[in-house]
């Protein structure tokens, strides 16, 4: 465990420390170190240990069970020759962009609408957050019905007389990936709304007074003044939603089953499918390792930037 660095707290009671025999005293900083032991053990053993294990297994010919017969990078050669894998990776980019973007945009918009001072605010908030209580499996099942062209929305609108109405994305290989974003946004938009709303509530009311005096239009205040102030909210939303995208598995299984064909597959489902159903542990591990590396490559610069920002300029 790292040696506690001198900091505000320590400096604040330096006088006390020097007045006592400091060496014999159990320092609170040590307790802080001890308190970190469980979480750090989990981080090192489970997160990083398992990532290393995954890498090791990806170098073997394991099928149903882990075996340690090494074959070099064969599994990666197979993985990269697999068309389904590339479809899944491409889908990850599309889905990640649409889902995170959609949650941010719609969540922010809903939060702004509510923040304009509506009656029955509590009701709207509750309604928007209701889908959050549903699991991804349930979300997938419901939306599968709604988007099924023979049963759901398309049929219902046509029955109302608009016979040319078309909403058949879930059965079109070139569109099915978008249905995942729709269902995902439906489920998570409430959480984003709540996070943004909370951020908006923390904005200093004087800003609004000042901008009214200056005659700045409301939308410009949001865009140019309020939005930059909510950067940490955006950070939290981004991290939470990216984690959901990377782990997206249940939703795909329940909504499209990856289909038609494998047009709406995502890497997490590819990996789980190969490890648990196809007895292709080695190949699945290779996919998992590539996925994790991708995640780390995309996320860590952002985390680094945010944490650095936090240290240099705290409190807006």
């Amino acid at each position, binding site marked *: 465990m790292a040696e506690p660095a001198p900091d505000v707290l320590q400096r604040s009671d330096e006088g006390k420390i020097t007045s006592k025999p400091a060496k014999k005293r159990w320092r609170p900083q040590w307790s802080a170190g001890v308190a970190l032991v469980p979480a750090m053990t989990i981080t090192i053993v489970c997160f990083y240990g398992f990532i290393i294990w995954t890498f090791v297994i990806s170098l073997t010919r394991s099928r*149903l*069970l882990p075996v340690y017969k090494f074959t070099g990078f064969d599994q990666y050669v197979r993985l990269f020759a697999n068309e389904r894998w590339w479809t899944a990776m491409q889908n990850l980019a599309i889905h990640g962009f649409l889902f995170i973007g959609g949650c941010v945009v719609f969540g922010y918009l809903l939060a702004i609408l509510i923040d304009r001072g509506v009656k029955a605010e509590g009701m709207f908030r509750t309604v928007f957050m209701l889908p959050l209580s549903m699991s991804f499996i349930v979300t997938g099942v419901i939306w599968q019905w709604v988007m*099924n*062209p023979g049963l759901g929305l398309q049929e219902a609108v046509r029955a109302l007389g608009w016979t040319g109405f078309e909403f058949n994305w879930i059965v079109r290989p070139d569109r099915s990936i978008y249905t995942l974003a729709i269902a995902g946004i439906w489920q998570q938009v409430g959480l984003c709304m709540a996070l943004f709303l909370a951020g908006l509530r923390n904005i200093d009311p004087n800003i609004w007074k000042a901008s009214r005096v200056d005659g700045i239009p409301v939308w410009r205040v949001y865009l140019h003044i309020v939005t930059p102030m909510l950067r940490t909210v955006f950070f939290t939303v981004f991290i939470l939603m990216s984690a959901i995208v990377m782990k997206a598995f249940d939703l795909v299984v329940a909504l*499209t089953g990856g289909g038609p*064909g494998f047009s709406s597959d995502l890497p997490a489902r590819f990996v789980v*499918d190969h490890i648990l159903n196809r*007895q*292709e542990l080695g190949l699945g591990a290779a996919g998992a390792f590539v996925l994790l590396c991708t995640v780390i490559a995309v996320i860590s610069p952002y985390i680094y930037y945010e944490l650095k920002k936090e240290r240099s300029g705290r409190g807006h």
Partner: protein
Amino acid sequence: MKKFSKIAASLAFLSVGVSAGALHAQTAEVLHWWTSGSEQAAIGEIRKAFEANGGTWVDTPIAGGGNARAAAVNRMLGGDPAAVFQFSIGQQLRELADQGLLANVGEVATAENWDEKLPPLIVKAAKYDGNYIAAPINIHGENWMFYNTSVLEKSGIEVPKTWDDFIAAAEKLKAAGITPIGLGGQPWQERIMFNSVLLGVAGREFYAELYSTLDDELLKSDTMRKVFETFGALKPFVDEASPGRNWNEATNMVAKGEAAFQFMGDWAKGEIIAGGIEPGTTVGCAFAPAIDTAYIMTVDAFAFSAMDGDEDATPAQTLMAQVMLEPDVQIAFNKKKGSIPARLDVPADSFDVCAQTAINTLQDKKTHLVSTGLFGVPSAVSGAIDDSISNFWNSADMSPEEGQAQFQQAISYAK
């Protein structure tokens, strides 16, 4: 749970030397994926027989084959195995045996002469190192064609015997506003239809050789291209809402006359019966069009865990294996399950028309073929087959040549 296996083990110890069927309590936990009404009724028959012979059945149902198989393997790895678990026979099971995780029931098998009574292909898949590590209990057929008889009559169509006839009939039905094929557009269902086309166009010998050798020459052959041409020609005959549909919804389309045909395994009979129709009446069953007669078999089987690392079956496991292949149990179980007995020497007369056809067909061993779903080929290959077939089926602009090339490539990477 550890306790359970301890109890089972100590009971096993106590009853060593006592023949199976003795009155000693013999406890076995049974992990399986049969959770729907008719499936529960079917496995209930085995349970009844097991308990009548003094066994105690501890039931662990987990819906979904994938979930149940994963749970069975994970529990073995975790040191808390279920004594008897449903699994697919073939390569995956042998891999478990390789690790010493399975018990063998060779003693019962020899005593009951399974080698003679089961189809040779199934015997091969259920054995490891010359010993039975699983009890195959039934045979489902995958090359069935279910059809709505009144729809065919109204359109003046005979049950097609060749794929050319089928396509002609489908054109006619489509013109009349009926969906020719009720298809659930999920990879495994698309593969079932593909294998029916493969068998129908290329014949049973080609089918058997293709999937036993996975040979590049065969995969690249003209025969194979013709298979892809025929399969591709079926694309216009399904309705728009097909992708993602469950198989039973497709069966209901046929039962209601919204669709004329469905290519599906014989478990579809259960759904037809649930809709109040006796199979062979309003909804007829026939083999999918083919140049010769064959039966694509898929098998449900139960395997046995090595309890406390012991690769000899416990008395409870032995009793279970014995009961499962008892002729009376085979009949009772399979009538409820919609399949046919794994033992070919069981009288056929009490089964429905479709099942009788199947039992009679299988008397000729040349008709025996394996499904690529769960038992014929390694699961990696099986997955690659499903992926590439499904991709071909769902890519409107992919030519048969491209489909064939992709199929060949996927298999050669997976094997």
